[in-house]
Each structure stands twice: as structure tokens, then as C-alpha cells.
């Protein structure tokens, strides 16, 4: 136990040191605090995008799903994750260009400017806050449970969630976005190493890859069928997962800050190039390890615990310590990125937008810091006593973010999209998602499709219909988004002589 606790302690100390080092490079401007002065390089950008998108799902929920429902949804996960480079090119590069051209810091500033409407800004703000806030509370909750399990109760749930929250507050307040991005990089490397090491170690426990695989084929044949042992992965559900993960990744609020913060388009090029490799090394090993794990622990009541149990029961204490660090990395990198983007939105959209239009740069930084503390403490309070509403919102969060996709595409690719249409599209698309996750609409209404599928269809139809029924947007603003300096395809054309 001392070994595990020592590794976790050293891990937290390293995070704080990185946060302190980042603070020393910081300047007191909003652009520096929220976006590291748009100076993030290729390595930090690549690993930071990766670690903020991959949450504790990777080590907890994903292996749990494979353990319980088989390997059948892995191809869906491969499609939605591997095709992310297309998103980086079509959306990420556009966001980078717009951020550079117009000086945007928050995702909502982009929507407000493009549609020339504070109403659009408000709708996007409310949706993002409602759907991101539960994530911020879920991460300390997950960390609390996992640390409690790995340390066998040596760190109680409330203390573990509290320590995680405190460390996140300190490094985010100190280092700002720069600190978070550097820490993301350190955390992403830990996540990748532990993911691969876990597979190698668990394979050795079942007699090596060859023997382990033979045993899986013989003993768990149903786990290798597309529908899985309990027949969960029907075509509609499989398709739903592909769609909502793909669109969710596209418009996660914290991803905007990553795109804005790149030093040059080349930073995005590296992210694009390395993404499938990193996603493959992150997702496949825990999934296969869970299959091997089922051979070792066949009757686990809580499938989500399979990887932590393999670490604690079958591997040395130091491995469990690094495993705990990897889970903490996964959840803290996601939560800190979300804290930072919500803090920037509060500061820029609400404080500067409505309360103090002439706020100095230094004041904006302090407002952002206070917002981080308040949001993180609020998340911790929820983690201690989760209200039923937060559980329902958390359920809707993944699908709900995906609903922003039609409006998000229209920002860059459809001149005719209007502000009223965007607002109605988002609200209309969220209705089936919220109503289904809140139990107002029975889930079987959509067959085995997730509610995000009807939500996306409604959002797209409303966007088109209402846009044609309302007055076209101001030509000068639209022209600015369709101008040659916003052309992404010049990136793949040969330079003219």
C-alpha cells in the first residue's frame, strides 16, 4: 500500500511542479491565461487534444463494456475515433483560422460573431454549461471511487475526490491553459504507457498473446460476435455510437481552446497525423485486456472494475500505483480542460459581455481564476451529494453535445444559415435528447437508436427550414468566413511557383 500511495503522491507533486513552471512563463492577459498566447507547439497540441478527449472511460467504462457485452462495438469505436483526423481538417483548421483572424478565446464568441447574435451565444453557452458541468463533477466522483478501490479504502472516497479537486484547482489557477496543456501532455504519455503495459502484463498472466487468444476463442466465443454475448450491439445502437461519438468529439467545448491555441497549422497537422495511432494504442489494449481479464475473473459483479482489479489482484503494487496515476490522468485532463473553457466562457461571455465591458486584461485573468475555483468546488460538492438531476444531465451530456454539430458545420460551410435557425436547431435537437434521458419520452420510442440520432435529424431539418424562412444573415460577416484566407483546401494544394 505504501508503494501505491507514494506513486500517487509523487504524481500529484509532479503536476503541481509543472503548473508552477507554466505560471513562470505566463503573462497577465486573457489570451495568455486562457489560450497560452496561441503558442502551443506540435507535441503539446497532439498529446493534449488526445488526453483531454479520452476520459476515464478508457480504463473503466470501455473495458467494462467489453467484459460484459463483448468486442462487438469496437469497430464502431474505431470508426468514430479513427475518422477524427477528418474533423481536425474540416473543422479544427477552420476554428484555428477564425480564432487567429477574429481573436476569439471562447467557443461561444465564434457562434456569436458568425451569426451576429447574442441570442445564439446565450443558447450555445447554456447548452455547453448544462452538459459540461456534470462531467466536471463526474471526474472527481470516478477518481474517488477508483482511488478508493485501488488503495483498498486507504484513501476514502470524499478525501480522494477532494484531493483530486484541490490539485486540479491549484495547477489550473497557477498555470492557466499553458499549465493544463503541459500537464495534459505528461498525463497523456502516462495513459498511453499504462494502456500498453496493462495489455502486455495481463497477456502474460493468461500464458501470452497466443494462448490467451486461443482461450478467448474457446471459452468466450460469444464475446467475439458482432452483437456480443447479451445481444446488445444491434445495428441501430452500433450506428448510434458511431454517430454521437464522432459528433461529440467534434464540438466538445474544450477542443475549441486546443484549436485556438495552436502556434501554426502545422501543430494541427501533427495531431491529425498521429491521432489514429494514439487512439489505437489507447483504446485497443484495455479492450483486449478486459477479454483476457474475463478469463482470470469470470464472475465480476461490477464489470467496470475489471482493469483496477487486474492491477491490484494480479500485478505488483507499483503497477497498481501507475494504474491509479493513469486513471487520474485520464479524468483530470478532461475535467481541467472543461474547467478552463467554462471559466473562459464565464469571464468573456458573461463578465466582460454584460457586467464589466471595460475589464482590464489582469482583471479578466483574476475573474477566470475565481471562476475555476468556484466551478471546481461546485463540482466537488455535487460529487459528495450527487442530486438526481445531475445524474440525468450526465446521461444526456454525450449525446447533447453532438446536437451542436449541424449549427457548428453551418458556421463555416453554409452561407444561408441564420441566427434564429441556429437557435431553433439547437433547442429543437436537444428536446428528444433531454426528454429521453429525463424519462419523459420512453427510450423504446427510438427503437434501439440513441436519442441523439432523432435529435441530430431534427436539428439539421430545423436549421435548413428556418434558415430559408428567415432573412439572410449580414453579407459582410458571412463573406469574412468564406474569404480566401479561410480556405482550408489551400493547405493541400501545391504552392504556386
Amino acid at each position: 500500500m505504501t508503494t501505491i500511495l507514494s506513486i500517487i503522491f509523487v504524481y500529484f507533486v509532479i503536476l503541481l511542479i509543472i503548473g508552477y513552471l507554466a505560471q513562470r512563463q505566463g503573462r497577465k492577459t486573457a489570451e495568455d491565461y486562457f489560450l497560452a498566447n496561441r503558442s502551443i507547439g506540435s507535441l503539446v497540441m497532439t498529446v493534449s487534444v488526445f488526453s483531454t478527449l479520452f476520459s476515464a472511460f478508457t480504463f473503466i467504462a470501455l473495458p467494462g463494456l467489453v467484459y460484459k457485452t463483448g468486442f462487438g462495438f469496437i469497430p464502431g469505436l474505431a470508426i468514430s475515433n479513427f475518422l477524427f483526423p477528418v474533423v481536425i481538417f474540416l473543422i479544427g483548421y477552420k476554428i484555428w483560422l477564425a480564432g487567429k483572424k477574429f481573436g476569439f478565446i471562447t467557443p461561444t464568441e465564434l457562434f456569436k460573431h458568425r451569426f451576429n447574435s447574442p441570442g445564439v451565444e446565450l443558447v450555445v453557452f447554456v447548452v455547453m454549461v448544462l452538459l459540461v458541468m456534470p462531467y466536471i463533477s463526474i471526474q472527481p466522483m470516478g477518481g474517488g471511487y477508483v482511488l478508493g478501490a485501488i488503495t483498498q479504502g486507504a484513501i476514502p472516497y470524499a478525501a480522494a475526490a477532494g484531493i483530486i479537486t484541490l490539485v486540479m484547482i491549484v495547477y489550473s489557477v497557477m498555470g492557466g491553459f499553458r499549465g493544463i496543456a503541459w500537464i495534459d501532455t505528461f498525463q497523456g504519455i502516462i495513459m498511453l504507457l499504462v494502456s500498453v503495459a496493462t495489455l502486455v502484463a495481463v497477456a502474460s498472466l493468461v500464458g501470452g498473446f497466443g494462448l490467451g487468444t486461443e482461450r478467448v476463442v474457446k471459452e468466450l466465443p460469444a464475446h467475439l460476435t458482432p452483437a456480443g454475448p447479451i445481444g446488445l450491439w444491434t445495428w441501430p445502437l452500433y450506428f448510434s455510437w458511431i454517430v454521437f461519438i464522432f459528433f461529440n468529439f467534434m464540438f466538445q467545448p474544450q477542443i475549441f481552446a486546443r484549436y485556438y491555441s495552436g502556434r501554426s497549422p502545422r501543430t494541427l497537422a501533427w495531431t491529425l497525423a498521429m491521432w489514429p495511432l494514439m487512439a489505437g494504442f489507447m483504446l485497443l489494449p484495455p479492450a483486449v485486456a478486459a477479454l483476457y481479464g474475463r478469463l482470470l475473473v469470470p464472475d465480476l459483479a461490477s464489470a467496470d472494475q475489471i482493469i483496477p482489479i487486474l492491477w491490484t489482484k494480479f500485478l505488483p503494487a507499483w503497477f497498481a500505483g501507475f494504474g491509479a496515476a493513469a486513471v487520474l490522468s485520464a479524468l483530470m485532463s478532461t475535467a481541467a480542460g472543461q474547467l478552463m473553457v467554462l471559466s473562459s466562457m464565464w469571464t468573456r461571455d458573461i463578465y466582460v459581455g454584460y457586467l464589466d465591458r471595460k475589464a482590464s486584461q489582469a482583471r479578466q485573468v483574476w475573474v477566470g481564476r475565481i471562476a475555476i475555483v468556484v466551478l471546481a468546488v461546485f463540482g466537488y460538492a455535487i460529487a459528495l451529494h450527487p442530486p438526481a438531476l445531475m445524474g440525468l444531465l450526465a446521461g444526456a451530456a454525450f449525446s447533447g453535445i453532438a446536437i451542436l454539430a449541424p449549427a457548428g458545420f453551418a458556421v463555416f460551410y453554409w452561407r444561408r444559415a441564420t441566427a434564429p435557425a441556429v437557435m431553433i436547431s439547437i433547442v429543437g435537437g436537444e428536446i428528444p435528447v433531454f426528454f429521453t434521458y429525463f424519462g419523459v419520452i420512453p427510450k423504446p420510442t427510438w427503437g434501439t437508436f440513441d436519442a441523439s440520432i432523432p435529435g441530430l435529424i431534427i436539428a439539421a431539418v430545423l436549421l435548413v427550414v428556418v434558415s430559408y424562412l428567415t432573412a439572410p444573415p449580414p453579407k459582410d460577416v458571412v463573406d469574412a468566413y468564406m474569404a480566401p484566407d479561410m480556405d482550408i483546401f489551400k493547405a493541400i494544394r501545391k504552392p504556386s511557383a
Partner: protein
Amino acid sequence: MWFFAVSLLYFVLTLGCRLFAGYGGPVLGSGWISYLLLISILYAIACLIFGLKTWRAEDEAGSR
């Protein structure tokens, strides 16, 4: 534009892996998983090539 065609092909082939489940293959005793791995590796290589070529033109233009 080849990258978008390859991405579409990856999408179709990955769906195809599920359609043709049951055919024999060397990985995990199941054909569709073998093919999924193979086409995913090929797609990862395609992304590497595309990523490293993309925005290079801009760099070259900027350095002249």
C-alpha cells in the same frame, strides 16, 4: 482529395467487417476483427502521410 476518399473507404470497410463477421481470420479467431485491425493500420498510415503533407505547402510558401 485522396484522403477523403480513403476515409470514406475506411468507413465502408469497417462497417463491412461487421457485415462479414464469421469468416475465418488469424486474430482473436474471428475474421472481422483481423480485417478491422488490418484496415485500421492502413488507415493510420494514410493519416500519417496526409498529416505530414498537409500545411507543408504553406510552410514552403512561408519560407521562400
